């Protein structure tokens, strides 16, 4: 039998030959030193190829992909905190705008808090101080704007600022969801 071609040796190694052909090749390998050497070399090569050297991807790759796929969504706690902040903001705005500081309910609360001590009274006092400060700041800003601009424009500017602040709050809250929807589409 003539010497084996590389293709035959490889096919035999891969188990691609039928039983008769494979047997003939094995017989030939027993008597032919050159083919036996070629066969050993291919086996050695296959052994090396079968244990590939893997390249380690950078450690931060998957977190980066996750960030790209799922932009940080607000958690329930942050949503609740944002809603609470919006409510506080709205109540403060109503309180300041309609000047509730002179209402009988607020006066009664203040008098009760002033006459007592304890954590609840302290909270009421703190809220009262913050509201008074907010009202004073609003009045000062309103007076300043009205002095600089015609009366309706000053109030409009102040109201516009408040609305812009509300809009910014909503944008920050909904931004991540918008990004995620965009990522899904693209």
């Amino acid at each position: 039998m003539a010497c084996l071609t590389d293709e035959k040796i490889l096919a035999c190694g891969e188990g691609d030959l039928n039983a008769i052909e494979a047997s003939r090749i094995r017989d030939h390998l027993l008597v032919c030193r050159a083919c036996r050497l070629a066969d050993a070399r291919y086996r050695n090569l296959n052994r090396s190829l079968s244990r590939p050297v893997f390249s380690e991807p950078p450690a931060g790759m998957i977190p980066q992909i996750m960030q790209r796929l799922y932009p940080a969504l607000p958690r329930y706690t942050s949503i609740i905190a944002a809603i609470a902040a919006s409510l506080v903001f709205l109540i403060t705005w109503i309180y300041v705008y309609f000047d509730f500081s002179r209402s009988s309910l607020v006066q009664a609360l203040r008098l009760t808090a002033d006459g007592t001590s304890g954590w609840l009274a302290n909270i009421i006092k703190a809220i009262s101080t913050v509201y008074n400060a907010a009202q004073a700041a609003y009045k000062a800003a309103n007076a300043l704007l009205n002095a600089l601009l015609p009366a309706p424009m000053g109030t409009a500017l102040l109201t516009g600022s408040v609305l812009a602040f509300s809009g910014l709050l909503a944008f920050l809250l909904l931004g991540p969801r918008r990004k995620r929807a965009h990522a899904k589409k693209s």
Partner: protein
Amino acid sequence: MIVDEDQVLIKRTLRGERKAYEELMRKYEKKIFSFVIRMVRNEDVAVDLTQDFFFKVYTVMDKYNFEYKFSTWAYRICYNLVIDHIRKNQAQVDSLDDESVSPHSLLASENVSKEDGFKNMAREETRDYVWQVVDQIPLKFRELILMRYIQDLKYEEIAEITSLPVGTVKNRIFKAKEILKKEMEKDGMLDG
């Protein structure tokens, strides 16, 4: 229809479970990155392409047909991404894949020491050297060797991914091995 581990992860991902997709990425990141980096031979490009691959798989996941193996479908996406990139940057690839340049000379230019001792090399070193030679063979052979041994695919799967006949895939892999053997013989590295 048998649902394998990958398909369970896909179903969970489609239901919106982030962890499931992260698990799927962790499972494939090494194989994908190793394939891509050996194809493009540039780490930064490989990182970008691997990220693009996982992003693309996620965005087209709802089109995945559960009758097929996920790995074959995903590797096809990966292969197409890499080939598109290589085609767009053909000039660079041509200079690297010039068949007239022997892998042997390329290795020499990379300062890979082939001084005495190769004949007695340990198996690990032989393996590392084989894979360095793989990195230098022409793309049309390299891509098939990588699919066969890095991605652990069968000839039929490689044929499906590359749209080549199974016979061509086998012949090219045989040819690649002949090239590798010749290069290794020059250093007497396969005699161990």
